């Protein structure tokens, strides 16, 4: 930060390093010499925001542009907010210390529904009117994107522009348009229209929504000629060619993911029916080991990190993983850099790989069976069998591991008490497996971590109502009673937090009022236990005449117009529906490599597609034509 207006505040807050910027590798350009100033905001704490790869990528994309300077801002912790408000000072960007109102555009990444109140609170702290309709030409353009933008409607009243899909190409296009329009003095209304003409941008004020007497959506259409009825998400076709930051800011404070990160692939070939990421990031694309190795080396060189983490929705589905690991190990061991691999799928877990990575540092092992019985695993299309789970665990134990973490979900569609008890039984069999062989001096620890199912847009389960919190809590207690072994640790999520998440995940524009009211009543950092207040939220819905069950717990009609139907993520609604029906019959769908399920996402790739079957089909079609 290049000014000391805030110095007296910083002596009175916890971790002042959150608010000063100036980290190693942070960007600096003279604001008086650039022609477009942007501020990228993360609506959660500095420690969470600095761990976010997407934000690092996009800030880097802007700053690579000549004449564009993109600064950063993270949600101030309540102690800092109190200081800012007490001194009447606005929220500012870390690099320059200038208030958010000094920027042409302020961009938010939406990682989680429970950050929405922070988005509004940050605008409020910056002295920016919350409602888009109340912001004149003098205010920055408010832009939002990220995973939650796949249902942008709850924030439609507040955000001028949503970026749908991957932003590496789209956002620089937006910046270029913004710059031209500012030079030409184009008024905001016209600017918004021009943005709506770019692919992958949704301008909520250009669409009108009507509702039926029963409260369901009746129509959703553009209110100006030329505005597209459907907004298609953007993707990057060739990941090897796309910008990837290898000189990101390195925080002084200890942040959540304090390590160098390599993005191995995007999308997932699996198709678990509850998983939003598995659908919205389709089609599957990956980077070559050569690209990744070069990025890793540059990252370590530029940051000094001694830990390197590979990120992926399902790392073991990366076909060239052994080759990548070999390449990395050629230099990481010598340079004392440790590797970590996330989200291992049980069926693809192999010993050799584990041993290689373990030779650097032994890290915890996590598997996600998601459900306790084969029937329910088939319903959700988690294509693994109990035998595969036990084999993988056995290998882990033989490889010297003593502790395992298993992820499950309660409240999945069609879950019965038998499925709940199945979680305990599976964990018990894993413990028994450990003791089935003599392992002198060792004891086992199995952590069972159970979250609550939240129906998400653009999944085969988007229509399913969420199980009510009381019933979820009953199942959580039932599971606790089923667990007998002291070798099993049991953790579960707060069902009421998941309900609030479901309300906003499947919400529509009418929830905007509730968000604004919640912020007015002091709600923020809802994702944090210490600030989450379910009763206050229910009070707000009640006072505003909003029925939260309508959004969270109702089973949506298959012919119902959904608030996010106007977005095209590549995967067709028809496919989602057929997957839902297969789930109801407990029938599985093979992964994309085994057989193309015809979801439609490959059509997003213009030149290349990772799915052979689809490519053949396209070729045939072209021939016929």
């Amino acid at each position, binding site marked *: *930060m290049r000014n000391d207006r805030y110095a*007296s505040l*910083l*002596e009175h807050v916890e971790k*002042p*390093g959150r*608010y*000063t*910027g*100036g*980290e*190693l590798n*942070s960007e600096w350009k003279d604001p008086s010499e650039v022609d477009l100033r942007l501020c990228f905001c993360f609506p959660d704490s500095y420690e969470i925001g600095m761990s976010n790869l997407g934000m690092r990528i996009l800030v880097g994309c802007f700053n690579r542009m000549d004449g564009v300077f993109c600064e950063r801002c993270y949600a101030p912790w309540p102690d800092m907010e109190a200081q800012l408000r007490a001194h009447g000072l606005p929220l500012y960007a870390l690099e320059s210390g200038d208030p958010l109102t000094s920027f042409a555009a302020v961009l938010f990444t939406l990682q989680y529904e429970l950050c929405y109140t922070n988005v509004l609170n940050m605008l409020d702290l910056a002295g920016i009117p919350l409602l888009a309709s109340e912001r004149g030409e003098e205010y920055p353009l408010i832009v939002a994107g990220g995973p939650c933008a796949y249902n942008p409607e709850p924030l439609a009243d507040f955000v001028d522009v949503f970026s749908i899909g991957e932003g590496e190409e789209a956002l620089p296009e937006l910046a270029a348009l913004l710059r031209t329009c500012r030079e030409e003095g184009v008024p905001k209304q016209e600017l918004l229209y021009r943005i709506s003409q770019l692919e992958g941008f949704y301008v909520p004020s250009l669409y009108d929504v009507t509702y039926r007497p029963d409260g369901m959506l009746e129509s959703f259409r553009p209110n100006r000629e030329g505005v597209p009825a459907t907004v298609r998400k953007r993707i990057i076709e060739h990941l090897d060619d796309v910008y990837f930051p290898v000189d990101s800011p*390195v925080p*002084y*404070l*200890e942040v959540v993911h304090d390590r160098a990160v390599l993005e191995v692939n995007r999308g997932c070939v699996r198709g678990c029916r509850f998983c939003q990421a598995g659908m919205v990031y389709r089609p599957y694309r990956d980077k070559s080991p050569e690209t990744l190795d070069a990025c890793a080396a540059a990252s*370590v*060189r*530029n*940051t*000094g*990190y*001694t830990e390197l983490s590979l990120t992926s929705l399902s790392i073991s589905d990366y076909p060239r993983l052994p080759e990548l690991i070999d390449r990395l190990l050629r230099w990481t061991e010598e*340079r*004392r850099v440790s590797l970590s691999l996330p989200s291992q799928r049980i069926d693809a877990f192999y010993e050799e790989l584990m041993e290689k990575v373990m030779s650097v*540092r032994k890290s915890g092992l996590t598997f996600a069976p998601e459900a306790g019985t084969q029937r329910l695993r088939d319903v959700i299309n988690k294509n693994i069998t109990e035998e595969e789970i036990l084999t993988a665990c056995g290998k882990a134990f033989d490889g010297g591991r003593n502790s395992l973490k298993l992820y499950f979900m309660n409240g999945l569609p069609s879950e019965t008490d038998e499925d709940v008890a199945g979680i305990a039984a599976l964990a018990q069999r894993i413990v028994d497996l450990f003791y089935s062989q003599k392992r002198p001096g060792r004891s086992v620890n199995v952590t069972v971590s159970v979250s609550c199912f939240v129906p998400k847009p653009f999944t085969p389960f988007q229509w399913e109502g969420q199980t009510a919190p009381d019933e979820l809590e009953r199942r959580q207690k039932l599971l606790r009673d089923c667990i007998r072994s002291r070798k099993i640790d049991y953790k579960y999520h707060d069902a009421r937090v998941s309900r609030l998440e479901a309300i906003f995940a499947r919400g529509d524009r009418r929830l905007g009022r509730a968000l604004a009211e919640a912020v007015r009543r002091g709600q923020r950092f809802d994702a944090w236990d210490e600030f989450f207040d379910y009763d206050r939220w229910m009070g707000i819905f009640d006072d505003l005449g909003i029925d939260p069950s309508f959004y969270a717990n109702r089973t949506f009609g298959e012919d119902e117009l959904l608030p996010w139907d106007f977005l095209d993520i590549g995967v067709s609604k028809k496919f989602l529906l057929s997957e839902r029906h297969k789930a109801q019959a407990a029938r599985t769908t093979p992964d994309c490599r085994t057989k193309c399920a015809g979801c439609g996402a490959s059509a997003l790739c213009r030149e290349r597609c990772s799915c052979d079957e689809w490519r053949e089909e396209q070729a045939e079609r072209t021939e016929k034509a």
Partner: protein
Amino acid sequence: MIYVFASFSKTGNLKYISHLDLNRAMTRLLIRSGLPIRFSEGFNPHPKLTFAQPLSLFQESLCEVAEFRLDEGADCPDEAGTLAALRAVEPEGLHFTNVTYSDRKLPVCKAAKYELTFRTALSPEALSALFEGEMPVLKKTKTKETIVDISPLIREKRFSAVEGGVKLCCTLPCGDAYLNPSFLVSFLGERVAGTRILRTELLF
């Protein structure tokens, strides 16, 4: 193996960075420097790094000293080379001023010189008078709170007028009898509106 004493300043926004965070940043800096750093043995190897005298949050310094070790060999530069390698990777607010090689560890730091700039309406004389008598402050440890007279610990006091306040140059003990300069500020309490604390020299 060579012991390296690297002197550096820590100023500006780095005063908001704690000693623990600085330690981590310095470790990463050493790795980025490409110098033949000696790592610790064991399962989680890391550069062996110590500091002459930790600096508290909200304080700046012109004279910090970090000690780390280099492996002697063909790729080990001389003192000037090491200084250049460190400077090439230093972050904003941290600036290396000197590098000295030694065959033994850093000696114990006995005392430190400070410059405290008080924003106050008091004159240097009035402030000086306050420092003449007993100076009781409350020292807290995990288990107990005691009132301590810090007056005898403050040596070589010099007061002078500066714009908007008074500057105090003084020497405070390090080691077992360490006195954090923030106690001088808490002693003055409401009489000063703000204080800049700058460490100017470490005495070994």
